[in-house]
Structures are given as C-alpha cells and as structure tokens.
C-alpha cells in the first residue's frame, strides 16, 4: 500500500495493487497486538489500526485494487499473469513492478525435529490466524519452540484466552525477540524461557501428547539433561523466510544472506524496472521500516515508469566484522539513503565504522534480533561515491 500510495502521490496515473487476501493489510490484520507505528506515526497502534491508516488513504485514490487475486507468473518482460475467480487469468503489462509478497514461517520439518507427525503442531502465525480471524483456540497445553517475536506474542495471546503455556525453548543463549516482548509476554505470565534448549522429540499419535526438551551444547547437540513436557499444542517460531517464488521466476539474482533478491538503495532488483520491498526483500523487525521501504520502492518505481529513473554510479556494500549482512547491496542515491545491518552475535559497547570512516556510530549494545539503521546524508553519500566499495564493520569501542 505504501508503495502504491507513494507512486500515486508522484503522479503515476495507472496503478494496480494486487493481493491474494480478501482485503488489504496483509498479515497486519491478524496481528491484533499493539506496538506498531511508534516510529512512523508516533502512536502505539495495533496491526489492524496500522493497516487502516493506509487503507483509508487508499480509498481516497483511484488506485485499482484487485483482491483475492494471485500472481502466478511473472516474466522477464515485466508481464504478470494474475488469477482470480471473477476474471480468470489476467495478463498485465507493467512499466514497473513492485514486489511486496512478505515472508513465510520456517516449519517444524525444516528444523528436523524427529518423532511423530500428529495434529496440534503449528507455526505461530497459523495459530494466530486460527485465533484472531477464524475464532478457535488451537489447543490448551502449549509449548513454544523458538523465542522469536511471533512465538512470544502467541504465548501471551493463548494464555489470555485460557491456555497454559508450559515453556518457550530457545536454541541460542539469548532470546530471539524484542526485550519488550520477553517482559510483557513471558515474564508477565510466569512463562519459563529455556535458553540453550531445544525440543528434540515430539510424541502423540492423532494429536500431540508431549515433547522431550534437552539442554543443548555449543554446537547445538543435546547434553545429558532432558525432560518431558506433556502438551497438546506445539507452536513453532523459528524464523521467517522471505517469500520469493515470483522473484525466482523472473529470474532475479538472489542474495542468500538476506533470503531476498539483490537490491540497491532505491529497492530496485537486478532486473531494471522490478522493485522489491518489505519482508520479501529481507526480514524486518518493524512494520514501520516496511512502510518506509515501500515508499522508497514506490517512488523509485514511479520514476522508472515515467522514464525518470536516474542512472547513477552504484557502489557495492560489504558486510565486514560481526556483520551478518548489509542491505541494500548497492548505494546509488545522492540525496539520502538508509542501510540496514544485522550483526552475527551480540556485543556490548561497540563502534560501527565503515570504509574511510564515513560513518562512525557508537552503541551500547547490538543484538542479531534488532536490525540497525544507518542513515546516510548527501555529504556522506558524496564521499561513498568516490569509493570502490563500502564496507561496514562492527567492533569493540
């Protein structure tokens, strides 16, 4: 929506917004908890309220919106094939395309937990859908695997609706979600968080009856201490994966570190005219950042569509010390740009530096679960443009 609205603002006349759901808003409509919009609107909003801010704006434009419509094919000539019940197959030729497919959740199978395959095993997002939209409780006695935000939010949600969450397990020695969620979703309800623990077996024939949890060592292999927890529901919150089926069809060059395509700071991909933003590009922490990316992508797509897309020098970014990835992969803008980095491991009292010391930031703490924004102004960008590459390092102070 943010991309479409920005393009509209810039005067593009023919904009088509397509979504497979029956209403806009994507995953936000099932995220009924608050914490959205703190950055963007300086308000503490729930997911549906955040989505509404954009839906109301959308209604005031002539942007065409096609809902319950799936994009099934995208070709290298920027032709998109859509499918829906009312119109059948629709072929759309676009001057510019913005991809915003979001992401999907890592599954139990992808983390190879052995045992049986009964019902009662869900990713946290599926449980969220069941509860908040369909209206049923997925189960009563719950164990959550993974301390990612979605798992923490669902631990609270299920507890409030009368379920008992017996444990949250986390493979790493530190939690995956925001501290705020650890406090308000686990501590508030006395839900134990077992760090350096993993579920190593699942029991149950028709429905889950319990799990075996083990203390894991440095390499992730279980140590002697194991214990069993009876439960009827297992929620998995073990990571998000950018959804890029369409991207691969084009095909776009993919970045294995982010899970999304290679992009520059206008959010253009390796294919001119195809832009990507949001969780489909890389997994973001906040919807607020997603909106921002959408605006940039939409604005860039608008420029491209009318033939005004600037042909600037592109400087590649490089992930240096303790940086798992830097995105975007190329800097091309001259006015302003934002880089996002995720660190490999947590560190306290750090200094974030770059090639030629263009940036110098000091932070008290950095964590892999919290993305770091690096804002670049015109002066910094001018310096960067004279470099061969722009490398970011995170090191001790």
């Amino acid at each position, binding site marked *: 929506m943010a991309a479409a609205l920005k393009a509209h603002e810039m005067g593009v006349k023919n904009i088509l917004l397509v979504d*497979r759901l029956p209403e806009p808003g994507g995953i936000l409509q099932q995220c009924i908890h608050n914490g959205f919009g703190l950055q963007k609107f300086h308000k503490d909003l729930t997911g549906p309220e955040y989505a509404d801010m954009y839906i109301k704006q959308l209604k005031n434009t002539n942007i065409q919106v096609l809902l*319950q419509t*799936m994009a*099934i*094919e995208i070709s290298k000539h920027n032709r998109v*094939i859509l*499918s*829906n*019940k*009312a*119109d*059948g*197959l629709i072929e759309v030729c676009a001057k510019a395309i913005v991809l915003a497919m979001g992401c*999907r*959740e890592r*599954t*139990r*199978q*992808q983390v*190879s937990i*052995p*045992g*049986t*395959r*009964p*019902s*009662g095993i869900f*990713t946290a*997002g*599926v449980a969220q*859908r*069941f*509860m908040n*939209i*369909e*209206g*049923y*409780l*997925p*189960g*009563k006695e719950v164990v959550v695997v993974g301390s990612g935000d979605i798992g923490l939010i669902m631990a609270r949600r299920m507890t409030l*609706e*009368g379920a008992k969450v017996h444990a949250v397990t986390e493979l790493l020695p530190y939690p995956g979600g925001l501290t705020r969620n650890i406090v308000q979703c686990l501590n508030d309800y006395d839900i134990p968080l077992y760090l350096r623990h993993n579920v*190593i*077996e699942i029991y149950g*024939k*028709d*429905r889950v009856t319990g799990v075996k949890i083990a203390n894991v060592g440095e390499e992730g292999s279980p140590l002697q201490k194991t214990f069993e927890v009876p439960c*009827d*529901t297992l929620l998995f919150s073990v990571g998000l994966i950018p959804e890029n*089926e369409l991207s*691969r069809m084009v095909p776009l060059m993919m970045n294995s570190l982010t899970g999304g395509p290679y992009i520059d700071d206008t959010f253009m991909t390796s294919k001119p005219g195809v832009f990507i933003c949001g969780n489909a590009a890389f997994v973001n922490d906040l919807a607020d950042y997603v909106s921002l990316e959408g605006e940039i992508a939409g604005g860039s797509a608008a420029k491209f569509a009318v033939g005004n897309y600037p042909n600037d020098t592109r400087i590649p970014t490089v992930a240096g010390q303790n940086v798992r990835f830097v995105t975007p992969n190329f800097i091309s803008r001259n006015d302003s740009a934002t880089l996002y980095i995720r660190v490999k491991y947590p560190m306290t009292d750090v200094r974030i530096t770059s090639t030629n010391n263009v940036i110098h930031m000091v932070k008290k703490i950095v964590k892999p679960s919290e993305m770091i924004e690096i804002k670049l102004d015109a002066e910094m960008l001018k310096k960067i443009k004279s470099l061969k590459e722009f490398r970011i390092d995170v090191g001790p102070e």
Partner: protein
Amino acid sequence: MPQNYNIAIIGGGIVGNAIARELSRYELKTILIEKETEVSFGTSKANSGIIHSGIHDDPKTLKGKLCIAGNKLWEELSRELKIPFNRVGEILVARSESDIPVLQNFIVNAKANGIPAEMVGERKLREMEPNLSKDIKAGLLAPTAGVIPPYEMTYALYENAMQNGVEYLLDSKVTNITRDGSGFVIRVGSKEIRAEYVINAAGVYADDIARFVGADNFKINPRKGEEYLLDKRLDNINNHIIFPTPTPTSKGILVIKTIEGSTMIGPTAEDITDKEDTRTSEEGLAKILDFVRTMVPGIDKSDIIASFAGIRPVSNTNDFIIEESKAAPHFINAAGIQSPGLTAAPAIALMVVDILKNSGIKLEKKKKFNKYDKPHRRFSLASNKEKELLIKLNNAYGNIICRCETVTEAEVVAAIRNGAKTVDGIKFRTRAGMGRCQAGFCIHHVMKILSKELGVPEEKITKRGGGSMNSNGHNSDRRRPWRNGGGAKSS
C-alpha cells in the same frame, strides 16, 4: 440381517484398491472395508512412488515375478487413470571396486529375465548424473524403472472402483470374522457384512485379520522406513533414481527422483515391534544423510522440507503371500506386500482374479466398464490457455488456495465431493499443503472448504480422522471443559 456381498476386501491401500478396481470389471457385488477415515492412510501413504525395474528381486519369488509383470502394466494403467508416470530409470552405483563384479552379475540375471540393463562407465555416468560423487566410477542403468505419485494413484483406483460400483466402508475396523456356510460374516462395530469371499489386503495387520479364521500361516514383522523430502527448488540434484549396489539383504538407501521432479532420500529399514510406530528419528536422518552423501555429496540437511516414515508389512517368508488359504477356503490372503508392492500392484490384482476363478467363483465381465472420470484437472500442470479454459468452465479454478503447489479451490472441492474428509485427505489428493510452507498459508482455507462442503463446524475438522482435530473448540465456547480423547470435541 447382514448385507450380502460376493467379495469383501479388507484394507484400502494400493493393493486393496487395485484389486477393487480390477474386480469392478466383473458382475460382482464388492465392498472394501478400511479402518481409517480415508483410503491410503496406512502404509501406502508413505510409499516412495517407485516403479521398480525388477532387477532387484529373484524372479523365482512372487516379488520378482509380479514386479516384472507389474512393471509392464504401468503405461496403460497410468494412462487409464490419468496419473503421470515417468520412466526416469534407475542407476545402481558402484561405490567401490568390489561393487563392480556384483553389478555385472545383476546384469547377467537381468538379461536372463528380459529386463533391460547395461553397465555405464565414468564418462557417461557423469553426463547422466553430474552431481554424482567423483569416487563413483561405474554404474548399472536399468531404464525401465520409473516413478509415479503413489497417493494420487491409490485415490484414482478408488474413485474408478467407485465409479464402477464398488462400495466403500471407511472408518470401519474389522473386529471379528466368522464362518458362515461357505462364506464369512465380518463384524465391524455393530454392523455385520456377509461375503462369499474375503480378500485380506490389510497391510501390517494382515496376520491379525487372517487369525480370525485361522488363515494366518504367516506372520507380519513390521519394518519401518524413514524418508526425507528436499526442496523442489534444488533443481535436478539427480535425474534418475540412484541406488547403491544392493547387498543380499537390502536395496539400500536411495536418492529418489520424484514424479514432481524433487529429490527424496531414504528409506531406512528398521525392524520394529509396534505396528503404529511411524516416528522419524535423529539416527535415521543421520544414517540417511551419511549414506546418500557417498553417492551425491551435495545433499545438505538444510534442504529438507518434509519428513515421514512408513511401515512395511514384511512377512516371515520375506515374500508376498498371495493365495487362497488352505485352512479357510474362500479366504484369500494378499499379504506381506513390501517393496516392490507398488510396482506389482496391478499384477497382484490380476493374480487375485485368477485365484478367485480357480476357487470356483463365476466371473462374468460387465458389458460396460466406466472409464476413469477424473474429478479434477491439475491446474498447476495446465498451460495458460488450458488454465483459462478451466476457469471458464468452473471459476473455482481461478481461486488459488495453496500457493506453494498452485492448487485451486476447484480441485479441493472436487476432492471432497469424491470422498476426502480430512486435511490429509485433501493433501494427498491435491498436493495442497505439501509444499515449502507445509500448509502454513492454506490450512485454514482447506479447513473452511471442508467445513462448508461436509457441513461440519471448522473446529471439528481433523488432520486425518480419529482424534486428530486441528483445534480445541471455539473461543466463545471456551467455558466448555476440555476433554481428552474420544468423542466429537476432543484433542
């Protein structure tokens, strides 16, 4: 007063359904009794989908004989049932020098049995399988091996059998069988079914079923096999089914090319005691990964998107047991159907018909045998022009329910109208939920459609019958106490 049938088949897996469809060609009143909520929920559900060349089994055994015979029937069968069948071929690789004479021996035997087989040298091997380990210098190519989608096949047999008058009794466990004149009375719960002939295709429970009438001159020793499916995005890890050189006891652990084009690795072979034990294990996965990496080193644990395990009904003779019981005339065992059971299935069906003939039953072919009327087209395999036509005919084809496998509402509805009652039933018929996200996005769509079509509230929809509900009751009914086990609302 029990209902009267000529034939009662006990067991709705690939074998039971292949027999049912074959018998539906004749003027017979046939019923198939299956204990699970849907057919193909037992061993057949975990089948690898391989149509073997026959090279592995001794042609003096039933396994060998029926495998060779069955392999030849698959083109026609797959055409009739509109199921894809691809003779991808199998390569038995030599992982060491000492394997080569063993393979050469296999070729001699294969030629003697009319099975095409040839040795392939390093260069050709590399061309055919670029990802094969550099340590593999030779292999045996048997081009008549192939792959099919096994669950779709079972459902096609079942649907065609129904289209030709076979009755199905599902969710019905046989609790007793007693003699009644020259026939039998089969007890299912409070129901009684009378049949002149009983065909025992009850898989891992075949010995238990046979025991009711003293026809258990065999024992079933369950043997578990774990398998792991890799992401189909890993294009062309292998082009053929890759076997190691067989040992006297085992075909080995394979790198399988599925009909969908993705790669599956496994199976293990573990003798177990619990006939219901379908747990996967860390040891099983480790064993499989270690082994397959000696053949295709590029395979990684992180590529796995699904895992499952099935139980082979291995008989104590290690061979198929397909015969009229001497102790119980008119009771025909089709038991111990382990690998190459799928390949042999059409030949097993023909053999059972022969056994019935020799037993004295009057087999009159029907004047009209209904060709298979496939209830839905697979949208994902259609060309764009075909897709447009399908949507014009039925606009529910335009509504894509499962993104990962591109499955439409029309296919899901057709599956339900042709017998699917559970989330797994839909999954195995349409592939919805089999992809990368493992039903993360489509499960609630599927449940909604099941609920609407079956007139059952969503919270009562199950994964695969019994107590495998996906929910624990409506939010607003939370005041109702949670019960454990049995009955309508439980989990």
